[in-house]
């Protein structure tokens, strides 16, 4: 029996084999709902959950205002709080009651107007107030503090104009109010969220499908054919790249239509950046599957090593520049960091080339590095 010699051993990619692998993968995608769920249902759920559920704006915060001595000035001041949609003020007359309310978490902050509030402002032009905020949630506390300052500042300004007397107006105040009042937090959350979702989809898709092949014993059969490692890698990346870009498109449509996030940059930049990032994420998934050969472990590892860092260290919610220096350095190896920055720029600011080029180069480097590691680590061995 003649055995036909294999054509083009060694170098290059055999198109017939690659096509075969991609066709197989597509059949599996169509017939197995789990990968479709990961690529399309998961981003929808996460976007709805985060888009509607998570908001960094503090609204209708219950706050206790201690008015030790009623006067025209205090009621004027109180009106500022009553009109604000950020606060639900509760008026009390002594600080003890307010403290008790804070301990019982009935209010999140206390504004303390001392007995001499009215007098001081008329006499010295200076009206100090006491502010306590519940610091359990540091982030919220800071926002709250800013709001209180805002209301206070506005009141001071108004009083100053009305009375024609110069007053000491704290400088920082305006900035804070502007940032939170003008911008909905959703606008910068949603683009960041897309980056986090794409990390999860990319890594989960490849890690799970390769682990599934190990589990079902098909990988062993695949390995014994003359197929080459690079063909296996491409055979996984190409179909799931298409899936992932589908998920991306869906997320962008949801962001602009449902959440009314503006898209100020150009679509092709968005497409190019997403492609680079998706390749990185898919390679991370492949790398995970080199180590984790069961779907359960692969899923866990993918969440822990890709999703969580992307969530915490990408600057999507937590500001990178306020992290300790070591952690800041660490964020440079998180691919999602560059993608978050790129997405936020493209969505909210437009094509700001210095940022886009920097992030794009970083993503290209990461994609190449991960692909190289995968190529090196993935062997045709058990």
């Amino acid at each position, binding site marked *: 029996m003649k*055995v036909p010699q294999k054509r083009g051993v060694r170098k290059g990619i055999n198109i017939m084999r690659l096509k075969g692998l991609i066709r197989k993968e597509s059949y599996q995608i169509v017939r197995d709902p789990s990968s479709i769920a990961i690529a399309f249902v998961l981003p929808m759920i996460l976007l709805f959950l985060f888009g509607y559920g998570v908001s960094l704006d503090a609204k209708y915060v219950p706050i206790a205002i201690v008015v030790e001595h009623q006067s025209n000035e205090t009621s004027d001041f109180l009106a500022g709080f009553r009109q604000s949609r950020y606060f639900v003020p509760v008026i009390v007359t002594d600080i003890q009651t307010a403290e008790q309310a804070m301990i019982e978490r009935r209010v999140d902050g206390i504004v303390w107007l001392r007995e001499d509030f009215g007098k001081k402002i008329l006499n010295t032009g200076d009206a100090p107030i006491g502010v306590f905020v519940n610091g359990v949630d540091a982030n919220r506390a800071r926002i709250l503090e800013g709001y209180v300052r805002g209301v206070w500042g506005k009141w001071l300004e108004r009083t100053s104009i009305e009375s024609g007397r110069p007053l000491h107006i704290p400088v920082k105040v305006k900035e804070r109010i502007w940032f939170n009042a003008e911008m909905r937090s959703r606008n910068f959350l949603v683009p960041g969220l897309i980056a986090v979702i794409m990390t999860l989809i990319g890594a989960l898709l490849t890690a799970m499908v390769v682990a599934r092949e190990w589990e079902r*014993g098909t990988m062993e059969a695949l390995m014994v054919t003359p197929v080459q490692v690079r063909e296996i890698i491409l055979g996984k990346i190409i179909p799931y790249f298409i899936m992932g870009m589908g998920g991306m498109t869906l997320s962008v449509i949801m962001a602009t239509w449902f959440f009314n996030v503006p898209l100020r940059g150009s679509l092709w930049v968005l497409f190019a950046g997403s492609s680079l990032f998706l390749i990185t994420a898919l390679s991370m998934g492949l790398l995970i599957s080199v180590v984790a050969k069961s779907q359960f472990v692969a899923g866990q590892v993918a969440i822990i090593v890709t999703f969580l860092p992307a969530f915490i260290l990408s600057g999507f919610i937590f500001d990178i520049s306020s992290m300790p220096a070591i952690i800041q350095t660490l964020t440079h190896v998180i691919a999602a960091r560059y993608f978050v920055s790129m997405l936020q720029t493209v969505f909210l600011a437009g094509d700001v080339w210095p940022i886009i080029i920097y992030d794009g180069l970083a993503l290209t480097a990461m994609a190449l590095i991960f692909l190289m590691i995968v190529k090196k680590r993935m062997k045709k061995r058990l």
Partner: protein
Amino acid sequence: MIRDQAHGGKTPEYVLRIEGIEKYFLAGKQRITALKGVNAKVRRGVVTGLIGPDGAGKTTLMRMIAGLLVPDRGEISVLGMNVARDPLKVQASIGYMPQRFGLYEDLTVQENMDLYADLQGVPKDHRSERYEELMKMTGLAAFTRRLAGKLSGGMKQKLGLACTLVKPPELLLLDEATVGVDPVSRRELWAIVYRLVEQEGISVLLSTAYLDEAERCQEVILMHEGHVLGQDAPSQFSGQLNKQTFMLSPEAESRRRLQERIRLMPGVIDAIILGDKLRLVTDQPLETDQVVQRFGVGSESSVQAVPARFEDVFIALLKQRTPGDEKVAHLETEKISHPPHNGSEKDIIVVEKVKRRFGDFYAVKGISFTVRQGEIFGLLGANGAGKSTTFRMLCGLLPASGGKLSVAGKNLRFAAAQARARIGYMAQKFSLYVGLTVRQNLRFISSAYGLSGQRQKEQIEWALDSFELARMADTPSKDLPLGYKQRLALAAALMHEPEILFLDEPTSGVDPLARREFWRRINRLAESNVTIMVTTHFMEEAEYCDRLVIMAQGEILGQGTPEAVKARFRTPRNPDPSMEDTFIAMIEDYEEKEAART
């Protein structure tokens, strides 16, 4: 046995040469030797069997030949190519079917074949012709559009084979291709393998844990615990035991008593129960009258010299290797004996027209049988026959969809918990807590059965002692050898002194020595009136049972003693059918009837 020839002597007669292979694996900090000093050769154009129990190193060796693992020492050359150096070239000229066939279950038969044709680089214009040949050979032509996951076990196996054959390989490697599939499919696979060898000149290396398959190979490499015990033609192997194997028909005593009596007598290599007879292997050739004299088994008419089987050879070789390993197992059966209530003819398990439905699929289709107290009762069938479902219903783990089930006088519909307290259950794969030591496992399981205080202590000591586990008491059970795991699982199932013991595939994969020891314990238990119910897909193991039912597709095809079941299929051409012959004949009968009905 084949001696290692000088290097470089390139004899095209061999398609595979394995020289001085060693392979280690790391398990935690321990280095485990998987293969040591393995030498073997596979001749062109024949079927060579790689035979040995689980843990022998068969799969490791197969994977090395296929280039999936690299040996730590030694060299493998396939068709003159060094596998470790040039795996891609080797992989282009061999076919390899892994244990689970390597099929994509969500692809159709045709799509699977196309994929492997693409991967093997079969030119498009050659395909239709090759497909046609393969479909004819495997009988899958009618199913090309069916998903591979929807095929039966036997059909999957054939599709797996077809996929590895899309490009005719020079050497075909089949890793445990016949394990777990039904005997009919097994027989068909062997027919295909021989057709390949004859018509296409393919050389085949096939690994299996079924020792009886050795006789179907033209050459056999026998492995045990990482070593090669020998390589030769099967007839040469069994020729070594000429005039050393006999069948005894006990006259005055029960066959189990007889077995106990002569098992440890000097000169006895093996004594096992087969049907109503006892199979004896001696360490030197004897005439039948000498056997009568030496073992005191009545008259000469009750002794019959028989040809040696491969398993006899294997046992003999193992005993040669590990002389004096045989320890006397004193199972204190008195402790678990129960006085017979009203004579031992009492029916302790009654199954009447029991059905079990999953969705619109009937896994069990109205079966009826009864089991008497103190009996060893077998449930025989291939994977998917409905054995496990029946078993789970009997243990009260799964409610029946219809019919009546009673165990130890309790109707399982109303008193499952009460019935469960009186049964012991040893699950497939033993279900031990792998992180716990032997003693911790015993303590946990005994408390789960409600034992405590002094009695629990006693029972744990009894288990450690009578199952010879004391030496291993503080070893984590994951580090136990398979045979010990099996013993521990049995001990755990017996600590609460059950009346009925359920064993689900208890001996699959353990080596024949451990299997013998296991069955000896089971026999002792039966002697002390414990009822034993066992499922198995080892046809030959069915012969150890007092009575059995044979199941296929949720129905009972036959029941009775092994002898009675076999007797139905005695023909002039086959006057002494084996259990496997019987099983195949029953399946064929059944299918004929089915065909007539529709």
